[in-house]
């Protein structure tokens, strides 16, 4: 390992290397593993070309170290340092085929989608503000800067990254638009089909709807809300100009086919949902009036999920519960009064005892003083009398 030997120069390089290798460790593991796999699959002549490129970029020492250690890395006998790993990440993509290079870009999608999900996440939402919320998210998607991995920005050209981002933005905005449309359809279905049916039964009903994409619950109103027809008028598909155009077209086509599947599924989903609701309503209608029941039905909508809760309580049972609580309250009050009286009595008794004790003590002392004074007086009288007689 002469390449990594000490000395001041190497010490500085090690420090610098440690800082830079942090980037390598921060790269998603799937990307690292994929690049390493590609690196160790290079044919003999590809490896020669790679070593030349590597040597031109990082110097002859680095090239010799690579050639010497390649087999040991491959067998796992020697581990790859962070600095070397970073260099491999930067150089290997240039020796890959178009599809393999594109795969590296695709590894960035989960982190971008996760950031987008965080942007889209909302808390409980008023249904009247649905359009405003979706518009706000659309604006955020259009304007937000997504920081890509250092590795992507170092390996791919700006044009390629821009195209990648424009395709992602297009699919994200279209998904948002479709989600708004689906939620709007679900709400319309709820007010036109579900609420009418629920009014046929004599029970308390709680309706909830949660929008999948926003991952939040919508607060429903008593009357059907007026929701705008469209979120965004037209979202233009991005222009494909780089060498990856075919891959992007394939992605967009797959996306469109998925959307068609979702749209085709929609009428069936509504039909099944209504069927399930009817079954449950018919069941609860057959339960006798004096019985209590609670029923919950979850229905999958197009852009979210409905939850319907029907609850019926027996009036006589509720009246009895009120009576029970009233008796309990009366008992609590009674006990409280008794405890108050008890303590008040004890305190009063103690007070009077203290006063009586004090009075007794006072009278005792006064009596003793009076007795002593009387004795003193009598003694003086007797003494005076004795002197007079003598």
């Amino acid at each position, binding site marked *: 390992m002469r390449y990594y030997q000490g000395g001041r120069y190497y010490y500085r390089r090690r420090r610098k290397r440690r800082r830079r290798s942090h980037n390598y460790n921060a790269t998603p593991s799937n990307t690292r593993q994929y690049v390493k796999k590609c690196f160790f699959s290079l044919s003999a002549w590809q490896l020669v070309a790679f070593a030349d490129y590597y040597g031109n970029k990082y110097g002859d020492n680095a090239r010799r170290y690579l050639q010497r250690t390649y087999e040991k890395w491959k067998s796992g006998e020697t581990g790859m340092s962070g600095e070397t790993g970073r260099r491999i990440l930067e150089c290997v993509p240039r020796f890959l085929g178009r599809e393999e290079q594109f795969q590296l870009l695709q590894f960035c999608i989960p982190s971008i989608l996760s950031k987008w999900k965080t942007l889209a996440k909302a808390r409980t939402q008023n249904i009247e503000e649905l359009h405003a919320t979706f518009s706000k998210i659309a604006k955020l998607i259009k304007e937000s800067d997504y920081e890509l991995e250092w590795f992507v920005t170092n390996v791919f050209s700006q044009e390629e990254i821009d195209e990648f981002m424009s395709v992602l933005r297009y699919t994200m905005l279209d998904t948002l638009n479709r989600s708004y449309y689906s939620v709007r359809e679900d709400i319309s279905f709820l007010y036109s089909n579900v609420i009418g049916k629920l009014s046929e039964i004599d029970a308390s009903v709680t309706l909830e709807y949660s929008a999948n994409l926003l991952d939040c619950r919508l607060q429903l109103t008593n009357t059907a809300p007026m929701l705008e027809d469209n979120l965004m008028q037209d979202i233009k598909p991005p222009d494909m100009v780089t060498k990856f155009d075919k891959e992007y077209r394939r992605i967009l086509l797959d996306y*469109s086919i998925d*959307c068609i599947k979702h749209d085709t*599924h929609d009428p069936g989903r509504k039909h099944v*949902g209504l069927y*399930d609701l009817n079954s449950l309503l018919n069941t609860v209608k057959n339960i006798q009036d004096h*019985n209590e*029941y609670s029923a919950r039905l979850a229905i999958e909508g197009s852009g979210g999920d409905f939850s319907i809760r029907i609850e019926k309580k027996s009036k*006589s049972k509720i009246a009895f519960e009120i009576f029970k609580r009233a*008796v309990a309250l009366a008992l609590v009050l009674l006990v409280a009064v*008794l405890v108050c009286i008890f303590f008040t009595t004890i305190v009063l008794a103690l007070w009077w005892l203290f006063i009586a004790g004090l009075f007794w003590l006072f009278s005792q002392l006064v009596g003793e003083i009076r007795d002593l004074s009387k004795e003193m007086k009598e003694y003086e009288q007797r003494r005076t009398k004795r002197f007079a007689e003598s």
Partner: protein
Amino acid sequence: MNNEEQKGLQKVEFYPNLPAGFDELSDHEKLEIVKRIQEQDLEVRKEVMKKIGKSKVAENDLYTAIGVIQQLDQEKKIYSQHHKGETGSGTYDLTVRGGDTKFIVPILVVIGVIILAVILLIALLKAN
């Protein structure tokens, strides 16, 4: 679509959601995609049929449950029945409580508590 457009032969768009790039594909590729969509369509239909099947099973389970409840009502028993299952579109959860409407047991318990409280009160007053 206005009235004027409805006259004569109209161009029918089978899959209006396809991206603009679809027209640039070769005939073979277009055919592949249309085939894929049709296969997907069949898959969706199959899935919907499965869901309908599940809903029918759930409906049947609910009918059976209501039969049991009606039977218990006839026998004037105190009961609490809980039924849970999967429907085609999601899940259901039904709990029914019924039976003795006179609530003899809880009433006796409450009366017992009141009597005990009164005894306690008298005992306390006497102690004072």
